[in-house]
């Protein structure tokens, strides 16, 4: 159960990756892997051999992705320019009509809005909660292992299973939540939490937060393990309180992890489907429809595969644009102030160390 194996790796990683990053832009001469003394006189042979090796390593994964991800998606794109009911050959070519229809559909436009609510809401809820819980779990306390274990439980459950359980809990009138609400003297909404269009999306958001908070905590804990003990100890010897230490050292150093997590969370939120499908099927009155429920509804329920194809292409374009924007606006910053941050942290560390030595 020890994780010592990774410690030297973690220690080296900073340097290794930042090296790669800093030099990445510089065009490298072809040759052996960086710094391994394999750049012999037989450069041509080496080059050829290197390519072959890369091919051998990368091909199985690429072939699987080509076969089971790319091919179906290309097929979906093909559907998107036809009016296809799901049977027989693709004959009724309609050009971009399906796209026009999807974009003109109010339900789809509101679905995009719901996706955005989930994207932003997930980050606003899970980020502070996740950091707080990760800080808590990073403390030495009795039952810490158990606590860490417990927090991951919802994340491991199938969305379908989790949704079935929540459906039971949120049952209007006869469910656990309504029973509790009534007991503390409040009146649950007449239509039930999931049946009231004004609440449904927020309830879904809360359930999603419950389900995925574990992932945030997991990643933040992993990030925190990279923060040196000495930094903390030194800061404490400096008289900083626990909170001050976390605020000044842990949280700033967690920045890249947070940004990475936010990226993953964003991608997940845009694709959100299983949970909503079981909880509300996108209802009531499309109040919780997302792009994914829209396209499944159009496809498998109404057999408008052309429309579904167009919606999936639009979903991808939106996801791609957001990922790109995120990369440009937020993640790039990491690389830019990488050096600066690195130095800052390092000087803080050495400063702290020298003080610690003095204190000792």
């Amino acid at each position, binding site marked *: 159960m020890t994780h010592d194996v990774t410690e030297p790796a973690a220690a080296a990683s900073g340097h290794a990756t930042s090296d790669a990053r800093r030099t990445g832009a510089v065009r490298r001469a072809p040759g052996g892997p960086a710094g391994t003394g394999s750049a012999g006189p037989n450069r041509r042979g080496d080059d050829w051999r290197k390519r072959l090796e890369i*091919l051998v390593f990368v*091909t*199985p994964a*690429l*072939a*699987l992705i*080509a*076969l089971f991800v790319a091919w179906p998606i290309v097929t979906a794109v093909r559907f998107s320019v036809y*009016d296809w*009911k*799901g*049977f*027989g050959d693709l004959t009724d070519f309609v050009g971009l009509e399906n796209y026009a*229809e999807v974009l003109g559909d109010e*339900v789809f436009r509101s679905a995009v809005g719901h996706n955005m609510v989930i994207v932003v809401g997930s980050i606003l809820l899970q980020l502070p909660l996740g950091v707080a819980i990760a800080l808590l779990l990073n403390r030495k306390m009795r039952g810490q292992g158990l606590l860490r274990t417990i927090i991951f439980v919802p994340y491991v459950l199938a969305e379908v299973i989790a949704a079935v359980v929540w459906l039971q809990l*949120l*049952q*209007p*009138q*006869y*469910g656990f939540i309504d029973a509790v609400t009534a007991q503390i003297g409040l009146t649950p909404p*007449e*239509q*039930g*939490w*999931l*049946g*009231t*269009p004004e609440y*449904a999306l927020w309830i879904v958001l809360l359930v999603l937060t419950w389900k995925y908070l574990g992932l945030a905590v997991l990643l933040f804990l992993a990030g925190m393990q990279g923060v040196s003990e000495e930094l903390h100890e030194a800061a404490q010897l400096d008289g900083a309180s626990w909170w001050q230490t976390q605020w000044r050292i842990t949280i700033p150093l967690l920045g890249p992890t947070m940004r990475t997590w936010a990226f993953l969370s964003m991608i997940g939120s845009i694709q959100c489907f299983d949970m909503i499908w079981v909880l*509300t*099927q996108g*209802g*009531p*009155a*499309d*109040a919780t429809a997302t792009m994914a429920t829209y396209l499944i*509804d159009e496809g*498998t*329920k*109404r*057999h*408008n*595969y052309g429309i579904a194809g167009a919606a999936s292409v639009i979903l991808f374009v939106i996801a791609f644009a957001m990922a790109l924007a995120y990369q440009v606006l937020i993640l790039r910053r990491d690389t830019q102030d990488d050096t600066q941050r690195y130095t800052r942290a390092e000087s803080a560390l050495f400063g702290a160390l020298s003080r610690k030595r003095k204190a000792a």
Partner: protein
Amino acid sequence: MSRKTQALAALCAGLMIAATGCGSSGDSGGDDNTIIWWHNSNNDPGKGYYEQVAKDFEKANPGVDVKVQAFAHEDMLTKLDAAFQSGDPEQIPDVYMERGGGELADHVEAGLTKDLSEDASDEIDMIGGSVAGWQVDGKTYALPFSIGVVGFWYNKDLFAKAGITTAPTTMEDFYAAVDKLKAAGIQPVSVGAKDAWPAAHYYYWTAVRECSEDVLTSAVKSLDFSDACFEKAGDDLVDIVAKKPFNNGFLSTGAQEGPTSASGLLATGKVAMELAGHWEPGVMQGITEDKKGLGDKTGWFAFPQIEGGQGDPAAQMGGGDAWAVSEGAPDASVDFVKYLLSTDVQTGFAKNGMGLPTNPDATGALTDPALADLIKVRDSAPYVQLYFDTAFGQSVGGAMNDAIVNVFAGKGSAADIVKATQAAADKEK
């Protein structure tokens, strides 16, 4: 680059060979003497009964092998769609259920379903006018084995408790009953609006009351919803919703799964009535622990008459299931479907309360008194309007159902229903 591509192609091919090598599915759907039969009776007694039916057929037809696969209803629909989309004969069952209407027309157009007009002419004559829902251009593609009608199932005890002595026949009666039930502290009606179709049945019914048979029949063909009766039916629906007769949380209530579904609420005495089809007693029996449902408290009345409506007062709204044979199925499949419609099989079907048989010789075998009454209503109706979402096809029906649920959620008007339906219909033309 080309080397890379070649290698990739080679690996892909290798992967495919390896993959097919791994395929272990032994049974081939194309076998001449193997009939693959999909049905949705995955509860006993239906499940066991159908297994017995298959065994009997095998015994009478040596050399024929019937593979029975029972699915949960929704799973069956998903898999059937997927099988048809794949166009792979090994995936497509030989004998399966057709709901008729626009969906069947799509299947016929794609050449997926066998024309049974000649081979099963005796059975078609026997069933009579009800096969109309499974005909396309005068040809019959499936044999309905159960056709039911949708009406209000109610709890006699709760009605008595609220002081309602006779079942409502008009809208005024219905509203009066709702008021009495509310006054007695009983939630009047449950509806599983989360699943859309139970809510949509209300609109189908108001339209059947408001529109004449001619208007409805021609709408199915022309997909033209401009007749004023369609919007009038929407206004009726708005009125019903405004009365607030429905259970708390009806927008997030499912149709028939578990004790908190619309059927469950009726079965456990939490509401007084529900608009549902002939399956309701069976569903309620499945949901209650004693397997009795409402038992002898079960009552039924037809959807109330609407004053000034153009519909025939005795007309019914409902639908059913039919056995179809897929194109490319072994010949024995047609014999099997005919066997499924035989008096023997239909009698057992009726005895087990699996539905309302279409073979007239089997109708007497219904043991459930509620169903026995219901079949009389069905057989005396001048016509049974097929569920709109089936009749118009899933694309138009889906749009219509969504617009109807919006009205239930207080987010749409009568005109919106017609508008959304017409918009979806225009795309079909």
